[in-house]
Structures are given as structure tokens and as C-alpha cells.
């Protein structure tokens, strides 16, 4: 199993390197270290969201409300900042994570206690959360001149050559890598998605694990909400509209099985980076906007096709090994 996962990640890493090579032939400046750091920074929100989505998908669920959660939390953060410019950024980050977790918990409760299919729950809450933004903001924008300087400066503040936005993404990768591989809860997510019945027999509460998956996804979406709003220095109803699909795509590219139970933090990160490289490269390699969408779509399908093929051949090899061993 471990071998299979690492090889998926290897293939994906190779694909990203090949892609960077191809882009470099058209626009050499793209692979300059400074620019790659920019690309990573730009992809950080997607990485953070993809980690949360991965956990949810592992438990056989899906969270389509992440972008709406992000937008709502972002709007609340922006409005708090406008109403009380003195509130320190640390408090706002805390509020963002807490509110995001709360919105995620709402999804989780519906899935856990009422047993509604997650796709239906999150489709519903997606619209509800967008609607709430409209209600609290009256449809108005919160603009950059209304936000305090400290509020806008945080994701841009540089430490050791990278902005805080990138560092936060790295921090989340580390935290969730440890959580998924070294804790009981992390292993429970795999068990619940891999074989729910077996999980029950081992004493794991399937619904509760799914609930926690939604809470994590929500908390990460909330954190991204603040980062997004302060990075683009604007908050309105439609921010990150449709971004949930990018997040799901990043997970699928990263080898996380929609049927649950298979996936890793590394895969989600690589999937997000794969999309991030495409998104950042398309504007500079001078292709018509009409082709851009087709290119991103094809890249996703090719990545997934390669991934599943790789998975299949690996399966056979394991069987052969088992034969030899016996």
C-alpha cells in the first residue's frame, strides 16, 4: 500500500517537472526560483483547501461548500476588520478558523445525525452560505481602503524569503501529515472510507469520523477565507465562485479515490501544485483564452488516466509478490 501511494506521488511529481520543462521552452523565466516561489504562494490557498477536502473524500464524503464557506468567513473577517480596525490579526485568524469549523460542523451534523448524502448536504449549504453573505453584506463590497493595513499585510509578510501565506500552507501540510499518519483519528479516516463495516467492528464510529472530517475541512476553508480576502484586498458575495471544483480536481489529480479510503496529504499537495502550475503558466505562454479551458481540462483527465493506470499495474505486482512469497 505504501509503495503504491509513494509511486503515485512520484509519477505526479515527474509530471509536474515535465510540465515545468515544457513551459520553460516557451517562457524560460517561469522556472526561475523566485517565480516558482510565487507560483507556490499563489497555490497555497488551493493546497490548504485540498488537504481538508482530501480528509472528507477519504471518508467517502465530499464537501462542495468549501468555497462558499471561504467566502462567508472571509466576508465576516472583513466586516469585523471594518467595524473594529483595532482587533489584532491573530484574533481574526482565530475567528476565521472557528467560524469555518462551525460551518463545517453544520455539514458534519447533517451527514452524521440525519444521514443525508454529503453531496446533497453540501450543495445545500453551499447556496445557504452564499446567501448569508448577501444578507450580512447587503450585496456590498468591502474594499481595500476600508481594511486596516495590518489586516492586509499579514499574508504578505515575509519570513525567510517566503510570504506568510506560503508558510501557513507548509505548516498545514506538516500538521495534517502528522495527523493523518501518526494519530488514531487519522487512521480512522482511512478505515471509515476503506471499509466502513470493518471500521464499525473495530469500534470506530463512522458518522463521527465523517463529522470530524467536515470540521477539519471547514476550519481550513475558514482559515483560507481570511487569507483570500486579505490577499486580494476585497470581499464580496462571489469571491472564489466555483473554486470548490478546483479543490476536488486537485484531490482527484492527487490520487485520492472518490470512493474513499485511498489518498495522502502528499498527493493532495501535488495535485494542487499541478493545477497551480497550469493556472499560472497559461497566462504567460500566450495561448488563446478559448484554448485555456480545454487545456486545463485535458491536463486533469490525462493526469487522472495516468494515475489510475499506475494504480492498476501496481496492484498486479503486489499479487505476484504475494505468490512468490507463499
Amino acid at each position: 500500500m505504501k509503495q503504491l501511494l509513494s509511486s503515485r506521488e512520484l509519477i505526479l511529481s515527474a509530471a509536474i517537472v515535465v510540465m515545468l520543462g515544457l513551459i520553460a521552452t516557451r517562457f524560460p523565466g517561469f522556472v526561475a526560483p523566485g517565480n516558482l516561489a510565487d507560483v507556490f504562494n499563489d497555490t497555497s490557498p488551493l493546497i490548504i483547501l485540498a488537504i481538508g477536502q482530501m480528509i472528507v473524500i477519504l471518508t467517502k464524503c465530499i464537501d462542495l461548500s468549501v468555497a462558499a464557506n471561504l467566502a462567508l468567513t472571509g466576508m465576516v473577517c472583513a466586516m469585523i476588520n471594518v467595524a473594529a480596525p483595532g482587533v489584532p490579526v491573530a484574533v481574526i485568524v482565530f475567528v476565521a478558523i472557528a467560524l469555518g469549523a462551525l460551518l463545517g460542523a453544520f455539514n458534519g451534523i447533517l451527514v452524521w445525525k440525519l444521514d443525508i448524502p454529503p453531496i446533497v448536504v453540501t450543495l445545500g449549504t453551499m447556496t445557504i452560505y452564499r446567501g448569508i453573505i448577501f444578507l450580512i453584506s447587503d450585496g456590498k463590497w468591502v474594499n481595500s481602503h476600508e481594511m486596516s493595513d495590518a489586516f492586509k499585510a499579514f499574508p504578505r509578510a515575509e519570513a525567510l524569503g517566503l510570504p506568510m501565506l506560503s508558510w501557513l500552507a507548509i505548516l498545514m501540510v506538516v500538521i495534517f501529515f502528522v495527523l493523518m499518519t501518526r494519530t488514531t483519528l487519522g487512521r480512522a479516516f482511512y478505515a471509515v472510507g476503506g471499509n466502513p463495516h470493518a471500521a464499525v467492528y473495530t469500534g470506530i464510529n463512522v458518522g463521527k469520523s465523517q463529522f470530524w472530517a467536515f470540521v477539519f475541512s471547514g476550519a481550513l476553508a475558514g482559515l483560507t477565507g481570511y487569507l483570500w480576502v486579505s490577499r486580494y484586498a476585497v470581499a464580496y458575495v462571489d469571491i472564489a465562485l466555483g473554486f470548490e471544483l478546483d479543490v476536488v480536481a486537485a484531490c482527484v489529480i492527487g490520487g485520492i479515490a472518490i470512493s474513499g479510503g485511498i489518498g495522502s496529504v502528499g498527493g493532495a499537495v501535488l495535485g494542487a501544485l499541478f493545477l497551480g502550475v497550469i493556472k499560472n503558466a497559461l497566462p504567460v505562454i500566450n495561448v488563446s483564452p478559448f484554448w485555456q479551458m480545454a487545456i486545463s481540462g485535458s491536463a486533469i483527465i490525462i493526469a487522472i488516466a495516468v494515475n489510475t493506470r499506475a494504480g492498476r499495474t501496481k496492484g498486479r505486482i503486489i499479487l505476484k509478490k504475494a505468490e512468490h512469497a507463499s
Partner: protein
Amino acid sequence: MSVMKKILSSVAVAATMMASTAQAEDMRIALVVKALGIGFFEAAAKGAEEAAAELGDVEIIYTGPTDTTAEGQIEVINSLIAQGVDAIAISANDPDALVPALKKAMQRGITVISWDSGVAPEGRQMHLNPSSNALIGNMIIKLAADHLPDGGQVAVLSASATATNQNIWIDEMNKVMGDYPGIEVVTTVYGDDLADKSYREAQGLMQSYPDLDAIIAPTSVGIVAAAQAVADAGKVGQINVTGLGLPSEMAGAIDSGASKSFAIWNPIDLGYSAAMIAHALATEAATAEPGAAIPMGRMGSVTLDDTNSGAMADPFVYDSSNIEQFKSIF
């Protein structure tokens, strides 16, 4: 809730009725807006008051429903007909739904014009557009060229590749490029009116064209995102972001210097012109017919086309000198 709104709007109408009986001899022009309490329309009302002060014998009745519905506007129109106002200048919530009510008003001898957001031709005598596609196309390139006396490279950051308005404006801009020698439009990219995609496209422009001097974004989402991208890249002063945006949304970009100036219609001028036109038509100083030129006081005059609609003026330019005044308006 809707009962409350009805009470509120009838109170508003009653108040205007009481106010109007005081000076019955003045010409009464009703400025009907999409909804009360919107900064843009409050500013238009200010402009109309300015016109009234200039004309002397005019009283402006600023009114509208409490939410942006056609039904609310029909109620307002009916009560204005009952009051016997001399003219109605309306920014419509629906081009067709208001036609019967406005026809009734015209049958009673009330002058009816629409402004900002138009009514179907049979429901009004003329329509005043804030600007025209040709004027906007010229303005967006002029904004960039004004800060590039020695010429330079500019790029366009539009909404989506299929956005009708933006494509027309960019076409109109390309038609007048001959008037701006030395200015080269290097490319057009599309941010799809998404903040993150527009930001990324602006970053891409800065990488692909290291000598870029200006980014023109004829879309309010794009211009804000591009200004933020330029500021984050530390290229303030090197690249000027301009185009069409709203003062409240662009105030930060003007402060940071990422944008030297941008344009959008001026609601004060629009309200002023609407009041002037309504006065001219109601006093029969001018008639609304295709080809006619109707005077608008300090705004010059508007020439009507085949559908009896005309364009007021160039979009109004906002920069550091007037942004403070307008950023709280709209």
C-alpha cells in the same frame, strides 16, 4: 416586511406630496430611482437639485421604492400621476413592466424620460445613457495615454472572452488607436471577472511584458485585482492600472498609487442632465425626436438617435484629487 415597506413608501410619497403643495407654482420634476438609500442615486439627486437651483422655478421630487422592484416603482408612478407632477425622470427596474404606468402618465400630459437604466421606447419620450460605447472605448485608451506622453506598451485585462460589453468597448478602443501614436496594445487577457484569475493574469502580463507601462481593465473586478497585483509586485509607478471602476472600490488603489486615474459615469452629472432634459421637454423648449439636440446646461447637449436615446458625455475621470469626495458615494 413588505407591509412595512409599503407603509414606508407611502409615508415617503405622502411627505413629498405635502412638501409639493407648499410651492404649487413651481414646475415639479420627479426623479424616480431604482430604490431609495443607494449612494449612486443619492448623488444623482444632488445633481438634480443643482439643476433645479440653476433653473430657479423647479422643484425636484426625489423618490423611489424601498427595494429594487418594478411593482414598487409602479406604485410610485401612480402616486406621482395623482399628484400631477410636470415631469418624471426614471431609472427603471424593468424596461417593459413600467410601460403601461408611464404611458398613462404621458396621456395625462406628464413629460416622461428615462435615464441610467432605460425603459422600452413606447414608455418614454427619450432615454439618457450615461455614456456611449464609442466614448467609453476612447476614454479607456485616453486614460492610459494621458500618463504616457512618450508612448509605451499597454495591455488590456478584460472580463470573460465572451463578455459583450467589454468586447464592444475594446473594439471601439481599437478603432481610435490611430489617435494615440506611440501607444501599443500588446495583448488582451481575460480575468473572467474573478478576483483570483484577474490577479494571476495581471501577474502574467508583468512577466510576459517586462516593459509594460499600463494595464487597462474595463471591468470593476479586473481593475481592482490588477491594481492589487501591481502593488504586490512592487511595480507602483512603473505600471499604471486604469480602466472602468467604482470610486469606493478603487480608493485603495488610488491611495497606493497603483492607479493614477480611472473612469466611470458621474452620478451627479447624470442627475443634473436628467433634470435639465426633463425641464426642457416639459417647457417645450425642446422636443424629443430622432436627430434632435436637447440642451443640458453645463453638460452641453444630447443628440438623440433613432430610438430617441442619447449619450450624456465621456465617462467621468476619477483621480487623487476627487476620490475622497466620491468614495463614500458609490
